[in-house]
């Protein structure tokens, strides 16, 4: 991995997302900060309930943040923003959802599903122009233009996910948040959708935030990965570095649990179980530290010392 990092596209600063009312508050994301560089695929991995989806949804402004800010191309896009900027962000940041069975409007034809965003953002377009764009978007994701007049229920899971991708592409976005885009799909279809996503990235210079729980897929697609546990990012690094030297015990537990399609190594697999009580954070608070270039980890002084020893060995 020697891709130069370059320009920062999205910067998340101290993001905190809270659900519930004051008496029954639940902090889903606790002060998360990270940068996403232009043209990269940034992975966010964690178990269910860790807040990874919430982060994605907060960036695209579906969930309001209770603290912190999101900077997109040097401009703050969280909180109150001007109408112009709002329109720009709506067009440039798009999302692909997890379950293609649930994320498409069952009562609308593909034509409408794909062009809905355009109707809002580009009301100046004529009907003719719009349907041309739909055709183009469908072809681009490997679907036939005549599918435009059909309903979602006529398609398989893989095709539906392609419709979901087409509807975000038609907006000509620069940044796509893909929330578990392949976890609801079959093995053979997964490969097709992953190929499609990486082809589009190459052709259009897209930047992805890839949210998933399956590290084996992320190793294949992501440039950098952040591991999140209970609303806190515990480790962030370039993909290969993370796989070579996982430092935080939670990352190690996740990595040890990856199912490998190889009977021999599965039989020799040793599971590491993460016990959050193993940290002694009462007196010595953990700090977010860059332990080697581009490799960040959460730990207190004692742990960081151990991590350094492990890295040097």
């Amino acid at each position, binding site marked *: 991995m020697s891709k130069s990092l370059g320009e920062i596209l999205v910067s998340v600063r101290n993001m905190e997302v809270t659900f519930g009312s004051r008496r029954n508050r639940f902090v889903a994301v606790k002060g998360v900060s990270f940068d996403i560089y232009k043209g990269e695929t940034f992975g966010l991995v964690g*178990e269910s309930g860790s807040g990874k989806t919430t982060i994605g949804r907060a960036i695209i402004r579906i969930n309001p943040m209770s603290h912190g800010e999101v900077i997109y191309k040097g401009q703050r896009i969280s909180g109150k923003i001007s109408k112009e900027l709002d329109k720009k962000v709506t067009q440039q940041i798009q999302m692909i959802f997890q379950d293609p069975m649930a994320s498409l409007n069952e009562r609308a034809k593909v034509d409408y599903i794909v062009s809905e965003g355009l109707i809002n953002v580009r009301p100046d377009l004529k009907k003719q122009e719009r349907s041309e764009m739909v055709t183009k978007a469908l072809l681009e994701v490997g679907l036939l233009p005549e599918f435009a007049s059909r309903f979602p229920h006529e398609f398989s899971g893989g095709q539906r996910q392609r419709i979901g991708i087409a509807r975000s592409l038609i907006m000509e976005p620069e940044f796509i948040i893909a929330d578990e885009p392949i976890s609801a799909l079959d093995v053979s279809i997964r*490969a097709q959708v992953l190929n499609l996503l990486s082809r589009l990235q190459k052709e259009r210079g897209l930047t992805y935030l890839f949210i998933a729980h399956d590290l084996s897929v992320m190793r*294949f697609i992501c440039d950098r990965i952040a591991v999140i546990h209970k609303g806190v990012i515990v480790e962030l690094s370039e993909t290969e570095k993370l796989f*070579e030297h996982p430092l935080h015990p939670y990352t190690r537990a996740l990595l040890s649990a990856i199912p490998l399609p190889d*009977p021999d*190594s599965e039989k020799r697999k040793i599971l590491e179980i993460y016990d959050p009580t193993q940290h002694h954070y009462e007196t010595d608070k953990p700090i977010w530290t860059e332990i080697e270039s581009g490799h960040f980890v959460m730990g207190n002084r004692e742990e960081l010392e151990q991590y350094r020893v492990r890295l040097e060995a």
Partner: protein
Amino acid sequence: MCEMKKDVILRVRDLVVKFNLRGQVLTAIRGISMDLHKGENLAVVGESGSGKSVFCKTFMGLLDNNGWVDSGSIEYGGQDLAAFQKEREWIHIRGKKIAMVFQDPMTSLNPLKPVGKQIQEAFTLHNKVGAAEAKKRTLELLADVGIPEPERRYKQYPHEFSGGMRQRVVIAIAMACVPEILICDEPTTALDVTIQAQILELLKALQRKYGLTIIYITHDLGVVANVADRIAVMYAGDIVEIGTCDEVFYDSRHPYTWALLSSLPQLGVKGEELYSIQGTPPNLFHEIHGDAFAPRNPRALKVDFVARPPYFEVSPTHKARTWLLDPRSPGVEPPEHIKNIRNIRNLKKEDAVNEQITR
């Protein structure tokens, strides 16, 4: 697992299952013959729609109302399960001798009933016992499946359990009567990786304790590699290849198995296209001629479109339905990258060595 000849616990012969969908007849299972050995872990893998769930549901008489066993037999315990007509006949088998763990623990539990009652229900249905006895057994079961504080948990409702714990409850229900055969339909798909590994460990422990025979239905080859003794690869309602775990992973012979293994992201090289299977599975409303996978197989032989291949034996435990194994075929080599499966392991080995040093 081929050191000794195992007893056959369930014998399937020429099973054909059909469904009636809006007046059209669909053939979901096209003549499967298979033996299930006592105490083994058999994994049934395939894409969705390959018929893997339907196949296993016939063992418990759980086909939907519009489906039926058209011909063939399922021998179990001296009876032919395929010939059962009435629900009454199933009562002694379903849940008692053959039980099932369903995919999604969120939907397979009753949200309005305490979990203890739900487990107990499965137990008292098949055994005439008093309430105290049944409760005692339920608490034992809860402990068995690794749920801490069974006394307290007994009274709780499904929403008070996490996904992993809920799946443990589902397993406890299936285990209530200590069945001989346990069918696990995608037991870990809905769970997190870390929890997934724990559930698989639990199933293995239960198997050792009770001498279960387990059938895993899954499309996750990682899970398969972990648990299976034998693997049956299904495509379009037929088992196209069956063999021991090592044979199928390291020495597969059917082009479909190759395709399935090749499309694993773990084998991908970053920046390169992942292998993906072209086309779509065949339409099961029509009769299939020749090898069902031929239209999607870029290297299909002419004969593949004409005649259905028989099983060719590779070893006593390994057979595949492909003309490639016929002595007259030109003999196609498996794709290069499948051999990388060994490399995944080698990579891991290096990791393990590194770990030793660092510790």
